[in-house]
């Protein structure tokens, strides 16, 4: 993998998370708090973040359809499954539950490590444990 390209991508993502405010769990939770709509506590910013991100990514995807392969590899490595199955739904529900409790999802949490707050480190460690629990325990159950 081209180190410089992935580094740049990570920098862009981290910068986007900071600029958009999505690195702040409070902004995320205040968006997810639909019951606060109308009482002044709702922050609609996340909708604009997702909107901006999806529009730019969509344009990029369209342009990339003309590419036979990515710049530094022989082929694209994208998922092709279209199956809507239980792991997708249950996993997403569990993810949403965790996101709704902490206001952190993987990107913002990892990006925040540089801000040196112990609770963020705890979240990331717990996240890695959760990932390991899935890959080493859950997916190997008989």
């Amino acid at each position, binding site marked *: *993998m081209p180190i410089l*390209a992935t*580094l740049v*991508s*990570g*920098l*862009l*993502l*981290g*910068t*986007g*998370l*900071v600029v*958009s405010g999505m690195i*702040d*769990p*409070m*902004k995320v*939770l205040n968006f997810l708090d639909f*019951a606060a709509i109308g009482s002044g506590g709702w*922050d609609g910013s996340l909708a604009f*973040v997702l*909107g*901006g*991100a*999806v529009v730019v990514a*969509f344009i*990029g*995807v369209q342009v*990339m359809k003309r590419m036979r392969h*990515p710049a530094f590899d022989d082929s*694209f490595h*994208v998922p092709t499954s279209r199956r809507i199955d239980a*792991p*997708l739904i249950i*996993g*997403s*529900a*569990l993810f*949403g*539950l*965790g*996101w709704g*409790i902490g206001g*952190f999802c993987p990107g913002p949490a990892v*990006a*925040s490590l*540089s*801000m040196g*707050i112990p609770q963020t480190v*705890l979240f990331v460690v*717990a*996240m*890695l*444990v*959760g*990932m390991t*629990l*899935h*890959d080493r325990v859950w997916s190997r159950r008989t």
Partner: protein
Amino acid sequence: MPTTFTPLSALVGGALIGLAAVVLMASTGRIAGISGIAARLLPPYTDDAFAGRLAFIAGLVAAPFGVMAITGAAIPQTVPTNLWLTSAAGLLVGFGSVLGSGCTSGHGVCGLARLSPRSLVATLVFMAAAVATVFVTRHVIGG
């Protein structure tokens, strides 16, 4: 704690996030899904993309430093304080994202941009779950 509605910086930041995904896809052909990238930094290693993933995470972690250095301003952030809830949240996010094959970046940005039916379902489910969770924690339990 109230936060300010910031549509312009949200759009600009979102565009940068989208751009990050495009850069990664155009250069490596891979989805910018942080849950997958982070999970694959843990053993076992099944491909030769470790260095690239590490560089991506390094960029992600370095970015707030860079922004703070350039702007000279602190980055506003309110992190959860309850250590048990923080741990539970982390466990759920970690387990759920790999079980569900993605998170907000993988499904919510890249998947939707690719018009993926799986990602549409995943995004709707995790959004609904998150909204329901916040409703319960803030308006039912929290009070």
